[in-house]
């Protein structure tokens, strides 16, 4: 049986896999080629009974990332959490959904707290225990940005994971600096001369992270588990400051169907609005190619936060500008190039 498996794996090098290449697992591939999530002994770092909304992308992304980190470190992970949805829905007294050691301090200090954890582990001679900070986009790109940048420039041994759902969802869907242009939020209503979030605002924290020259920066999505896990594994194999931004759709905040969470994450990548890339020491080293390119309309349409764009001529123009952003990403990160030999 083992021999046969080996043969089959060898075959895959000649003819890449059809069924199961992108699925979580597959009976025909060896365990190493299956996602951590395929395993019955995955950590379930974030376990059942949490109070996330139905179809929560963040709950999914957090389990994906933490389980991969647990696998990569043999379970030696301490997680620090910024205030936000993830914190609130996982740890309402008297229940916690976390199975790893976990600490919530404040909204804007997760990176610094994780620095402290890493320092403590080093001083205790337990450097094998790794610190991971996690937060939403509000806690990362806005209020936690100072601490994040500080952790980066000191090159502290922390992996910071931003679960990017493009707004302040915990407080009722307000705009953050990660909210995309055109999106309606409670603080960027679909009213007035420029309805929704204003074009030309916002920032790319992954790019800013790259500018810090830290050892590793990557973006990932809940729609591509293998890619996500690979990046977490890679990150955990490196010491120093690392940043991973995971795109996690929010059915509540985006006005999308709960079952569309992964589909939307996928469409965000495939239309080019959320480029998947990796960078090391300040240089972008790879990007995940778009497999089936779609126009941004396909991604925007299932989300009520963009519904106003589809009803007017001006809105159509703005969709065009969003397409422009997608096109720019595609060009900048070479998202359509033929795949290399890797």
């Amino acid at each position: 049986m083992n021999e046969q498996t080996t043969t089959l794996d060898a075959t895959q090098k000649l003819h890449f896999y059809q069924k199961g290449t992108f699925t979580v697992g597959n009976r025909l591939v060896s365990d190493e080629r299956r996602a951590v999530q395929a395993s019955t002994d995955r950590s379930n770092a974030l376990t059942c009974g949490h109070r996330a909304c139905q179809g929560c992308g963040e709950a999914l992304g957090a389990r994906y990332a933490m389980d991969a980190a647990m696998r990569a470190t043999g379970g030696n992970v301490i997680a620090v959490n910024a205030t936000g949805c993830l914190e609130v829905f996982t740890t309402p007294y008297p229940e916690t959904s976390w199975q790893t050691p976990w600490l919530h301090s404040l909204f804007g200090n997760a990176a610094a707290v994780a620095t402290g954890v890493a320092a403590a582990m080093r001083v205790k001679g337990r450097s094998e225990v790794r610190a991971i900070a996690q937060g939403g986009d509000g806690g990362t790109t806005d209020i936690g940005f100072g601490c994040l940048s500080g952790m980066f420039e000191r090159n502290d041994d922390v992996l910071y994971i931003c679960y990017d759902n493009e707004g302040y969802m915990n407080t009722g869907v307000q705009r953050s600096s990660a909210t995309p242009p055109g999106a309606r939020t409670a603080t960027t209503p679909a009213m007035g001369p420029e309805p929704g979030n204003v074009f030309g605002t916002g920032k790319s924290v992954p790019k800013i992270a790259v500018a810090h020259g830290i050892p590793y920066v990557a973006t990932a999505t809940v729609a591509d588990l293998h890619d996500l896990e690979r990046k977490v594994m890679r990150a955990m194999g490196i010491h120093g400051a690392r940043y991973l931004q995971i795109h996690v759709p929010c059915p509540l905040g985006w006005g999308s169907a709960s079952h569309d969470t992964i589909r939307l994450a996928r469409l965000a990548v495939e239309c080019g609005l959320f480029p998947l890339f990796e960078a090391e020491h300040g240089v972008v080293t790879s990007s995940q190619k778009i497999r089936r390119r779609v126009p941004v309309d396909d991604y925007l349409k299932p989300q009520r936060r963009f519904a106003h764009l589809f009803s007017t001529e001006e809105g159509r123009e703005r969709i065009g500008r969003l397409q422009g952003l997608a096109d720019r990403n595609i060009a900048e990160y070479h998202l359509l190039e033929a795949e290399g030999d890797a």
Partner: protein
Amino acid sequence: MEHPFAISLDVGSSLANLTGSWRTSRPVYVDRLPPCNNACPAGENIQSWLYYAESGDYESAWRTLTIDNPLPAVMGRVCYHPCEGACNRAQVDEAVGINSVERFLGDVAIRNGWRFEPPQADSGKRVLVVGAGPSGLSAAYHLRRMGHAVEIQEAGPFAGGMMRFGIPKYRLPRDVLDAEINRIIDLGVVMKLDTKVDRIVESMREGGFDAAFLAVGAHIGKRSFIPAGSASKILDAVSLLRSMEGEDQPLLGRRVVVYGGGNTAIDAARTAKRLGATEAIIVYRRTRDRMPAHDFEVEEALQEGIMMKWLSTIKRMDEGTLTVEKMRLDESGFPQPTGEFETLETDALVLALGQDVDLSLLDGVPGLEIKDGVVTVAPNMMTGHAGIFAGGDMVPSERTVTVAVGHGKKAARHIDAWLRGDAYAPAERHELAGIDKLNTWYYADAPKTVRPMLEIARRQSTFEEVQGGLDETNALYEARRCLSCGNCFECDNCYGVCPDNAVIKLGPGQRFQFNYDYCKGCGVCAQECPCGAIAMVPEEI
């Protein structure tokens, strides 16, 4: 360890919070009908045998396949594979090469000498099968495996029926055909060749048969009246193809015209080409797209240099020339004469205008109804005469090997039930797994494997098999292109994508189970199931 009150909590304690109560609809695992299975006239469980083939377990694949069809090597060559036409993968890139994998499995089985499991017990019933064509062989095989004693009485000198006398050997090498027929005979089926049944009721009585399955092929070529000079050489395609199995090959001359638009016309023209004709022309009254012949056969014929004359009818034949009238299609697509004529040089005219069945063995059988040259059968394949069933070319249906094999299986099941004084009730059919039920993103892009083709020069001069088979890697690759439409293939997606960890993985072959204590009913699992094996159903309130 006692923790500081409230701020610090024991890990995993949220398991106490049963979030399943939030749910308004629940996911359920379902099995849906794959389009390939749905489209197979032989009723093969294609997806099931591909499942085994994917893992390289070819014997299990072959055994699963032959539960429904005893002739995979034949089928893998001559079937027009409606399965592939229905295959959902066609809408992703290209259909899975089911037919080629089937042939691979059939060939592997022959090469390895795999044999069928004999019946566990004899039923004591005897069934007469008339005709050793695909339908008769299929019925005999199934009936034998059900434990019945089966005797095939075949009028011809060889078993195989139209597979031998209608399909040229460059499409179906005879050793392959023989191997698969012999394997059926090895099950204990009695094969009586050169035994023409003239009076079915008498034959049954004399042989002490409890039931009969009539599976006489359509071996009589239809003739059309074409005024012809005395020296004109006119013959029918069925006779031409049949004569290829004899010792003396027919002499057709250098210029041969085949009249007709079906697969038989193509076979005849390609055979003529191989017999040395420098010109082989198919004359057809309509256009290519209206030709009943399968397009790939037309394509292969064109590759081999067969010429086509569309929108033409033959008006008469004189020595060395044919008079042809140009046609045009009317609004409803029927050809109408134009009054324009032309002549074609020709040495022989082969008529391929359809075939009839010799139904003389049914003369005087009470209760039988014959209509348009075929026997009327009930849904259970039984004729109006109790105990006499019929299938294949004899009954109203498409005349293909695959249909015939399907008839044989279906008839066998009904005969078996009838012999037990019972009625066979087919299993309820699942909902069709259409492309809309799938999430094809999870399947890597993998175009269909192209099967090797014999080089053109040899195709024009020899009867060697034109289309090659797949080697093992190719076959594996091709099998793995199957999307497993509608049926869980344990990809772990539902287990992975559940934001609430509410899917329990039961282990290899055991599939999954929902943990409704925690499932919030978001529906991500159903959306992300690649093969459409999860349905969302409303919670009862």
